[in-house]
Every structure is written in structure tokens, then in C-alpha cells.
């Protein structure tokens, strides 16, 4: 599944004014590769993911999924096909199994059709016996895996990850990176991964987009970006000196 963003603009209404969060953003994410979305705080990275998942509306431009404008796809179907893993794991009341089955239960007519959550627990390399555990009792890394399994249970074609390792220690982060890289190639997922960690982006990404103040300043192959950015903002960002917030 290929995603293309063409000149999209997103804003929010604040006290009778529209504040622009994204300005004429264009980028393309290829099938089966990890696309890192970099940028300082407040550059619009999370907004961009939420917009692709259609939790935010675009004011200008278009987003195409395999050439089809996402506004022409049923919004609930679109959200099933484009999975989003949020930065901080949040759980619905219930067990690990209940959380994983949240999505599949939406698509089954009688709402009670039995889908086994255990393969999804195994997919994220957790113990299937944890199916009846309260997810809030798990460690941060384990919670993020349950969160990932819940999104994967919808069988998405695109995976949007909003800084999934930001609250994890180095070891848990690397485990999650390895897991997602594996899933990406095994299931041919198109992955867009928001991170502010340059080293992480170097380890995981095939392609990179750098956002700054709501605009794309770099977009291309990760290797060439890290070897030598083509813009001043890109060089400043890699030097760790690009300031955040709008």
C-alpha cells in the first residue's frame, strides 16, 4: 500500500483564528519499508499521522492510498486499513485479550464472533498466556507491544507509529525496533514512524522526512539524508540545534 500526500494543509480553530499546523506537506511512503518522520517538538509530526488516519481533517491538498483519495474511502474502513499506535499506551477496560479484540469485534456482525487474540500476542513476542491479564499491570515495553498487537489485529496495510519507544529504556526500544522491522518485511507493511531520535531513525529507516514548523524541509532516502542533508535546516537538525515549537 502506497501513501502519497500532496500539498496538504491542516489547521485548528483557536479563539476565532485558524492556526496552521501543517503547510503544503507532500511526501510519499513506499510499500514494505519504514519511513521515519523526524522533526523537533511542535513540528507537526503527530498531527501528520492523525491526519493520515483521518482523525484530523485536511483543509487543502489530498492524501492518496494506492492512488485513491482517502476522502472517498469509508472512514471506518480507512482506519482499519491504516493502523495507528499512539505514543502513550491507553487501554480500554478489560484484559489484554479484550483490548486486542476491540478492532475485530467492530467488524463482526454479531459482535461476539470468536477471534483468537493469542496469535496477535505471539506476533508481538509476548506470552499468549497473558491473554487474561490486565494490561495496566504490564511494563511500559510490554504495554506498547499489546498496543501494537491491538492495532495489528485489524490487519492494517499501513502502520503509523507515534514515537512508540519514547517512554521505553534502550533495551526495550531496540526490541520493539527489531520486532517492527521484522513485521514490516514479513507482512509487507508500509510503516511511518515518528521519532525525534536521530540514532533510532538511522537504525530503522529506509526513507526519511524532516518536518520543521509544519513544512517538509527534507524528504528522501535515509542513507543520503544522514550522509549529507541537502538543506540548512537538515544539517542544523542533525547537529541537534534545530529549535522546536511553532
Amino acid at each position, binding site marked *: 500500500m502506497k501513501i502519497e500526500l500532496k500539498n496538504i494543509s491542516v489547521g485548528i480553530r483557536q479563539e476565532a483564528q485558524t492556526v496552521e499546523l501543517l503547510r503544503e506537506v507532500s511526501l510519499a511512503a513506499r510499500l514494505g519499508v519504514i519511513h521515519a518522520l523526524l522533526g523537533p517538538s511542535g513540528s507537526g509530526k503527530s498531527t501528520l499521522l492523525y491526519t493520515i488516519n*483521518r482523525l*484530523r*481533517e485536511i483543509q487543502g491538498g489530498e492524501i492518496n492510498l494506492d492512488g485513491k483519495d482517502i476522502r472517498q474511502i469509508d472512514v471506518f*474502513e480507512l482506519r482499519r486499513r491504516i493502523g495507528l499506535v499512539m505514543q502513550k499506551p491507553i487501554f*480500554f477496560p478489560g484484559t489484554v485479550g479484550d483490548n486486542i479484540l476491540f478492532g475485530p469485534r467492530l467488524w463482526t456482525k454479531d459482535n461476539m464472533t470468536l477471534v483468537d487474540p493469542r496469535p496477535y500476542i505471539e506476533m508481538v513476542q509476548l506470552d499468549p498466556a497473558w491473554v487474561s491479564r490486565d494490561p495496566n499491570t504490564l511494563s511500559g515495553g510490554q504495554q506498547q507491544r499489546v498496543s501494537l498487537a491491538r*492495532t495489528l489485529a*485489524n490487519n492494517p496495510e499501513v502502520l503509523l507509529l507515534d514515537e512508540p519507544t519514547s517512554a521505553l529504556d534502550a533495551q526495550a526500544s531496540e526490541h520493539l525496533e527489531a520486532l517492527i522491522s521484522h513485521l514490516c518485511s514479513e507482512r509487507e507493511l508500509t510503516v511511518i514512524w515518528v521519532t525525534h531520535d536521530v540514532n533510532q531513525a538511522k537504525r530503522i529507516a529506509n526513507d526519511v522526512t524532516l518536518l520543521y514548523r509544519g513544512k517538509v524541509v527534507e524528504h528522501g532516502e535515509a542513507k543520503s539524508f544522514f550522509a549529507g542533508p541537502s538543506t540548512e535546516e537538515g544539517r542544523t537538525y542533525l547537529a541537534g540545534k534545530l529549535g522546536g515549537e511553532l
Partner: protein
Amino acid sequence: MSWLALSLSLGFVGLAGIVSRYQELGLEKELAIAVVRTLIQLTIAGYVLSYVFASQHLIFMVLMLALMMGVAAQNAAKRGKGIPGALRIVLIGIVISEALSLMLLLFIGIPGTPQYIIPLSGMIIGNSMVASGVTLNRFSSEFKLRRGEVELALSLGAAPKKASLSVIKAAVKAGMIPTIDSMKTVGLVQLPGMMTGQILAGADPIQAVRYQILVMFMISGATAITSLIVVLQGYHTYFTPEAQLKSS
């Protein structure tokens, strides 16, 4: 009761005023306004009721009920600040709950005369007002508190109603709890107004109790219906037509 005795009862309000002053609650002005409003509103209500009861005209009864529902809705809607169309939402809730309750009352044989319908409706509407106020208030705070959870459910493909289910449940529950609590303690902690009034007026306590049981059951149904109607209309206002949560 003589007018002198009634005037002396102002001493109780004086006590509340002293507490407010002593604790620096700043409620003295509110209290004074409340006293004046109570005096004026109840006196007018007394005269209006006398007239309506004497005339037995259906139109006066309907007008009276419409006024009661309008005032109740306006009062409860203040609890739903930030919810667009809160007044309309509450009014619909109160009107439907009042209509259903009245139909049930008439069905079980309560006479359709103003003497019965107006006081019973007063209790239905008053309790529906409290329930819808509490429900709206809780609804609005739960949506703020559970914004992440609602958005997560949307991101997984849930429709707005499914995504708001935990908020809806919490708000309806909050609206019903005061009624359920008062049902649990009625007769033990409190003797409700209607029953007390009937006993003071010389009615047989057993007969008064029967009416009170009817009223409590009626109120439990009415508050549940009002709370549910309020949230089922209200959750829509938090979403765009594209099933996106509106920015707060």
C-alpha cells in the same frame, strides 16, 4: 400556619447566612436572592395553582407543564457549558421523560386532573432537571478526561457512539445515582416532601406511603430516561460528520 410563624422561619436562612459569613463563602447575596425568589415564585405558584385547579381547563394545565419544563431545561442546560445546543438537548430529554411518565401514570389509573398531574409532573420534571444537569456536567468532564481513549477507539475504526460508550455509561450512571441513593434511604433517613405534605394535611400515612412508592418508582424511570436521552443526543456534538473528535 400563621404569617408570623412563617416569618420566624426566616431564622433558618439567617443561620445559613451566618455560616456563609463565618466561613467566608461569599454566598450571602446568592442566599438573599434565593429567599426573595422562593417567596415570590411559591406565592405566585400558589395563586396560579388555585386558579388552574378551580378552572379544570386542560389548556391551563398544558401551559403550566410547558412552563415548568422550559424553566427546568434552562436551568439544567447551564451545567452543559461548552456543549452546543445543550438547552435543546435537555428540553427534549425532559419532555420525552415527562410524556412517558404521564402516559404510564394515566394507564395505571391516576386521574388526569390538574390536582394530580401538576404535582406529580413537578416531581418528574424537577428530578429530571437534576438528573440531566448532573448528566451533562459529568458528560462534559468525562469527554475531557477520556479524550485519549475516545480517539484511540476512533483510530481503530469505532463509530462515534461506540467510541463514546464509556463516557455515555459514566454520565448516565452519574445522573441516576442521586435517585437510586434516595430510593435506598427513603423512609429511613428522609421522609419525602409529598408524603410529608399529605401526612401534615391529615391523610392516612399508609395511603401517603403508597403514593410515595409510586412517586419514587416513577422518578427512577424518569431520571433514567432523561439521562439516556440527554447523552444519546449529546455525544453527536463532540464529533464532526467525518467521525473526528472536535478540538476542545
